[in-house]
């Protein structure tokens, strides 16, 4: 069941020059409903018209014991900047939970979670769910430089973590798709979220190695719940809404690679 709800900002931590981790809880502390990894929220920015539409942000983590949702936000424009400026104690209105989710496997296997930049956001929640199932996720995180790799200790608590940076300041130098674990291993299933070129490469790799693969899209959205038909992605079944049929798609459904 989707809701429109006022949250209170419990904490807002600047992780580096452009990313904030914002933890929010329902204003009257009503218990959070079930949420799934890969789902997202639509954040109302101010109640200004300057930023007219809500901004979609992944559910980074659900801290049940504290009744909190975590949002990992990268400042790329006016909307995300304003969200990152949220003061502790301030209200934040969310429509949530939105979208489908990553597929949680039923059997043990080798599961790789590949994130680039702020695309790692939904992977923390996914990694948690996998580890709750008893599977040990492997994370492969990429960034331009060491500071871009976010929430490293949280990821390390859940599974093994490999990193790449373009300048070599953390982990292997290069893009995630150049990392040696990809050459040295084969994975049953790969989950990925990040810049599209990265996801395309990951999907190619998955195809080549016969691994299953799900990607999380960041198409432009107006509503976020299937009403406007603005966020469509071309799929093998025709145009599908990235907000309701996605944001997670199996690469077999997409027309990215021939």
């Amino acid at each position, binding site marked *: *069941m*989707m*809701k*429109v709800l006022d949250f209170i900002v419990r904490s807002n931590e600047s992780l580096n020059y452009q990313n904030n981790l914002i933890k929010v809880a329902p204003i009257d502390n009503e218990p959070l409903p079930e949420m799934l990894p890969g789902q997202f929220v639509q954040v*109302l920015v101010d109640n200004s*018209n*300057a*930023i*007219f*539409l*809500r901004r979609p942000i992944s559910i980074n983590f659900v801290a049940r014991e504290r009744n909190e949702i975590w949002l990992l936000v990268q400042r790329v424009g006016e909307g995300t900047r304003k969200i990152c400026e949220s003061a502790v104690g301030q209200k934040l209105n969310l*429509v949530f939970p939105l979208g489908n989710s990553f597929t949680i496997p039923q059997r043990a296997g080798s599961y790789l979670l590949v994130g680039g930049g702020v695309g790692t956001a939904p992977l923390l929640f996914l990694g948690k769910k996998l580890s709750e199932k008893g599977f040990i996720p492997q994370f492969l995180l990429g960034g331009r430089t060491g500071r871009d790799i976010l929430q490293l200790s949280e990821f390390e608590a859940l599974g093994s973590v490999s990193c790449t940076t373009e300048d070599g300041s953390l982990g292997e130098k290069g893009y995630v798709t150049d990392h040696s674990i990809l050459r040295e291993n084969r994975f049953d299933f790969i989950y990925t979220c990040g810049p599209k070129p990265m996801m395309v490469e990951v999907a190619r790799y998955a195809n080549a190695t016969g691994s299953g693969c799900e990607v999380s899209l960041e*198409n*432009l*959205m*107006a*509503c*976020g*719940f*299937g*009403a*406007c*038909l*603005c*966020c*469509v*992605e*071309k799929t093998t079944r*025709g*145009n599908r809404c990235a907000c309701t049929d996605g944001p997670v798609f199996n690469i077999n459904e997409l027309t990215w690679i021939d």
Partner: protein
Amino acid sequence: MDRLSVKIGNLKLQNPVTTASGTFGYGVEYADFVDLDRLGAIFVKGTTVEPREGNDYPRMAETPSGMLNSVGLQNRGVDYFVGQIYPGIKDYNTHIVVNVSGSTLEDYVQCAQKLVDLEKVPAIELNISCPNVKEGGMAFGTSCRSAAAVTRAVRDVYPKTLIVKLSPNVTDIAEIARAVEDEGADSVSLVNTFLGMAIDAERRRPRLSTVTGGLSGPCIKPIALRMVWQVYNAVKIPVIGMGGISSATDAIEFMLAGSTAIQIGTYNFIDPAISMKVIDGIEDYLKRHKLNSVSEIIGKLEI
């Protein structure tokens, strides 16, 4: 509750608050957020004879106090609506109005014919104003002659309530309203979106795959309100007003300007429960102003 009820032709709405086509899906998309049974009516998605995939991504661009869209009437076609969608929504305790679009006059007629027998669809809204499809739509809505022709053709086959949705992209919208009134429309609804455009300066490219798209949201409200007022003063049939409504106050402004009912469009995306707030807000306004019925607001602007 009857102080809120209004009539569009023979159609009685429990209140003037309805939701605009293309922004409210088939209602179900909002079932988690609103009590659909409280709405005056639901104007469902633009429906065409044949299924349409719509335009390519990107179909949306944010603008100051509004947005552009170029969805392009993505829908599964009228047969799918009748066979698959209608059964699932016909038991709402509100009216379903189908927004009918087409490229040719024949399209509109065929679509209307397929809908006329649906018991729970007491009305259709002829969309002669979609700016997002190459073949037609808006072309019908920008001349009196073609607007009259399509209205006449559909009127001949559709005895139930016929609403014609007007395009704001014209020099004289009142003239077009009169033309469709003369051909037997029971009501006019206005406005559809304004043809607009957005450019990504850094990439030097249009933001929409279709270059131009339809502008909606609070930014258009002042123009829409003026058009409603002009049309109200030009025709005798009831006017259904819309364009940027985001609050009960906005709705009341449209009613004062002459709207018998109003539609909420884009703002449903920002606050999916806005329609309920608008109903409550109108009730509250009537109470505060000691008015017995919404008819004491409709067209009651004091000049």
